[in-house]
């Protein structure tokens, strides 16, 4: 038993020594903290600035990367008291640093922004993903069509429908409509706006004369009612006979009288 304990503690010692050696460089935690504070601040400012119409992902990606870096710097760097981050987290119930960092993360993830950018070995880059660029290309084609001089409100549906259909098809292809938000929020917002514009102008063509449909519903409903009436008319009446029960009092009365 003792031997096992000795081996265990030696192992722990070796482990802690190697860990310490890894981050030997003594960092200035105050500087790192200020960096993170600035990064979070500029990210928040950017987010609010580009909140409507949403261009949040596209515009704030650099700020977000700063926040990520700032936080990871703090968690890996050490000064003489230990890891920088340990001086700020898990000390009180307010947890200001962690809360604000988590907030930024949460906002980014809820907007599915990571889908707009390419990932490099699991880390976020500020290069737009293929889907984003393709989508933007298609969208630009549509906008140039809508904004071109020969198109006005009445002709837009005919003239630009090819571009619109392409864009719509591509969007449906990249977004999974069953999920709450399938694609990165910038694209979703652009598409929602486009669709709203398009539907407002061009959706009347969906309404057709559906007289065949209405007649068939009437026929089916009517035939159900007719069925119930016919069953009454056509069925013969059945009359169950009551069984005479043999009772003490009854039999006695009958016999006595």
């Amino acid at each position, binding site marked *: 038993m003792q031997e096992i304990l000795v081996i265990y503690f030696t192992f722990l010692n070796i482990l802690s020594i190697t860990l310490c050696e890894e981050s030997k460089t003594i960092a200035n935690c105050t500087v790192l903290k200020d960096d993170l504070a600035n990064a979070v601040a500029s990210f928040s400012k950017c987010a609010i600035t580009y909140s409507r119409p949403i261009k949040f992902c596209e515009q704030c990606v650099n700020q977000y990367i700063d926040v990520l870096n700032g936080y990871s710097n703090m968690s890996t760097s050490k000064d003489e008291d230990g890891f920088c981050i340990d001086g700020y987290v898990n000390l009180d119930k307010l947890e200001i640093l962690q809360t604000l960092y988590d907030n930024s993360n949460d906002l980014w993830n809820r907007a599915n922004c990571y889908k707009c950018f390419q990932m490099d070995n699991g880390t976020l880059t500020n290069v737009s993903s293929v889907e984003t660029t393709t989508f933007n290309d298609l969208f630009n084609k549509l906008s140039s069509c809508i904004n071109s001089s020969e198109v006005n409100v009445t002709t837009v549906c005919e003239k630009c429908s090819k571009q619109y259909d392409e864009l719509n098809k591509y969007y449906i292809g990249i977004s999974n409509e069953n999920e*709450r938000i399938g694609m990165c929020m910038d694209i979703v917002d652009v598409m929602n706006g486009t669709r709203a514009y398009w539907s407002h102008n061009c959706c009347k063509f969906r309404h057709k004369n559906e007289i065949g449909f209405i007649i068939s519903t009437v026929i089916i409903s009517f035939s159900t009612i007719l069925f119930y009436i016919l069953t009454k008319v056509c069925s013969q009446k059945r009359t169950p006979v009551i069984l005479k029960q043999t009772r003490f009092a009854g039999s006695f009365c009958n016999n006595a009288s």
Partner: protein
Amino acid sequence: MNSNTDHTENHKDAVFSVNETSSDLEELTNSCNDYSKSLLSSLRRRILTSDEVVEPGTLNILSAKYESLDYDTCENHLLLDEERKKGTKYLIKKNLQRWLVFLLIGVCTALIACSIDISIEQLSQVKYATLSKCVDKFIVEGKLYIPYFMYVAFNIIPVFIGASLVAFVEPVAAGSGIPQVKCYLNGVKVPQVVRIKTLIVKSVGVVLSVVGGLAGGKEGPMIHSGAVVAAGISQGKSTTFNVDFGIFKHFREDHEKRDFVSGGAAAGVSAAFGAPVGGVLFSLEEGTSFWNQSLTWRTFFASIISTFTLNVVLSTYHGVPGNLNYPGLLNLGQFERFSYQIYELPFFILMGSFGGLLGALWNYLNYKLSVWRIRYIRNKWLKVTEACLIAALTATVGFLMMFLINDCKPLGQDPTKFPTQMYCGDGEYNVLASIWFQTPEASVRSLFHDPPNTHNALSLFVFVIAYYLLSCTTFGLACSIGLFIPTLLTGAAWGRLVAVGLLQLFPNATALVHPGKYALVGAAAQLGGVVRMTISLTVIIMETTGNISFALPLILTLIAAKWTGDFFNEGIYDTHIQLSGVPLLPWEPPPFVHNIYASEVMSHPVVTLRTIDKVDHIVELLHLTTYNGFPVVDPPIREEHGYPTYGRLRGMILRSQLIVILQRRLFNETCEDWESISSSIFRDEYPRYATIDEVFISDEDKMFTIDLRPFMNPSPYSVLHSTSLSRMFRLFRALGLRHLPIVNDTNEVIGMVTRKDLARYRVCRHRGKIVVEELLISKEL
């Protein structure tokens, strides 16, 4: 033939002799006229009919075709022998086997539930995905009738197959099966109800009906399936397939089988709702009259095993094996935390009363429709046609609602499986299409959990009315389909509507007016108003929503719903039980019946057997009567007047026992040829005994005699003729009796009381009045 006429004459004489001989009955027979007057002037109300003929479809007739189950152990010599031979070891083995059977019941019920669930999910996914796509394809071409006819066809085809199965193969599999299971647990032998054929028709039928888009759910049929599974497994044989595994032989009697069936019903509830405690309470509430601690414990075991097995299989099916997050078929989903304030309680009670009102109306409409069906739709083809028409009507109503109400919501905010655009703009979906193009169960879930403002008031309102009427029409069709889900759905929809209204009135109360909370209360109120179940329903809803702190609002809602509904009519299950004329014994004897005595209730001329009787007499008796139990008496002694008195009670023998005795030729004269006999000779034939016509008795055999004493039950429960109705009722209900001989002071059999004699006296609560009715009995109901 000779002896038979002799016999009946004896009885006539016996009746006549009362006046002179039996002094103990003198007070009853003092004046016949006075007596019968006092009978009629009591609180009871007897339905007067002309010419002894009634319209079919009344609530006040009992059917003569229902027999009672026999829960009383027949303590004959054979049983005593058996007990002497086998000892403790046998008892322990039997107990262990019981546990094993309950384990198997849990597992098998859950497996059936899984296969039903998975088939429904797969098939409806294909159906609704195709429909949703087709609607959007043809709507731009202006040919909406194409997807409409596809919808109608997709509804009619499965329903046609399902309804044909039910109508032509096994009619008892129609409906939810809960009334039938309730009758069985109450002690009524409903023909065919626990056969394997019923199970097959039921489970295939429920898949087809739900896939066929009828307004119904699979939960009720699950309970019935559980009961059939239990009855089947516990017997270790199948009469249908003519297989006998030779196991569990000791469970082949009504008493043991009933215990297993109560476990099976509980396992069914547990699999359907993921509510093991609710399942146990369901078994308790819905009638097992004989209920003890060890049976409860085993029932609970079966329920837990059932929900566990279901969980394992479904989680594997959904690709997360080992993640036990699928406890039941009906998964209402975890509610996000909502709070309720004490001042909301009166409001919940109001909603409960409203649910009770709607439920009572629902029951009334369904009752009227059922009467119509009983009277006019008796032909099997008509039944199938009706089911198909209702399926088509469901499609029509759904499609018209999508077509007429253009309620659009942007995609991506709410989980919709098959968003259908209809006339909405791009990137939007039609809310009503999303409700109709999914199984009703998924619709309930979305009504409970979708965020506020998902549904607008108009579409909810139209939906409530349409679905209320549709579910009312659907229940009672020749399809195996239950009413839990459509009722929950209607209730959830109007509950949500209430939340929408409240938000209009109090725009600031968004925190308190959680639409899911009101949907839940509405669903509970509606369901409570229709089925009038209390304990088990509260617990089932609590367990399916996983919200224990909401128990008080739920129970208040359900009590309000039940009381309001009971003011007008009975629960839907009870109504259907009464329509089919089942002699069900309620929990309590009717009130005001302490002044009704056994001498008035009993059937009077009793057909008795003597301790040693002639074979041809017994055979004649079995041919001529329909009775299933015969008191065995000493031969009557002729008194000085020359009239025989009644025989002294020696025991009881059942028709089934007599048949087995005749089949095995256990005659006194042939006793050298008897094979070794034990009580297993009766168990081997269980549950289907031959009829007397199937037993061949040679003329030579008819001359022989049978000594009934070793086979009969030597100590049957019997009561004096002066026992009150309520006392007999309690004895019957608590012990699960089948026959109760009535004796006079000298222990001579003067009458017989059976289940139907007691069930004839039924309490009727109508608009606050309580009266006791005396029902009539008809053969052809």
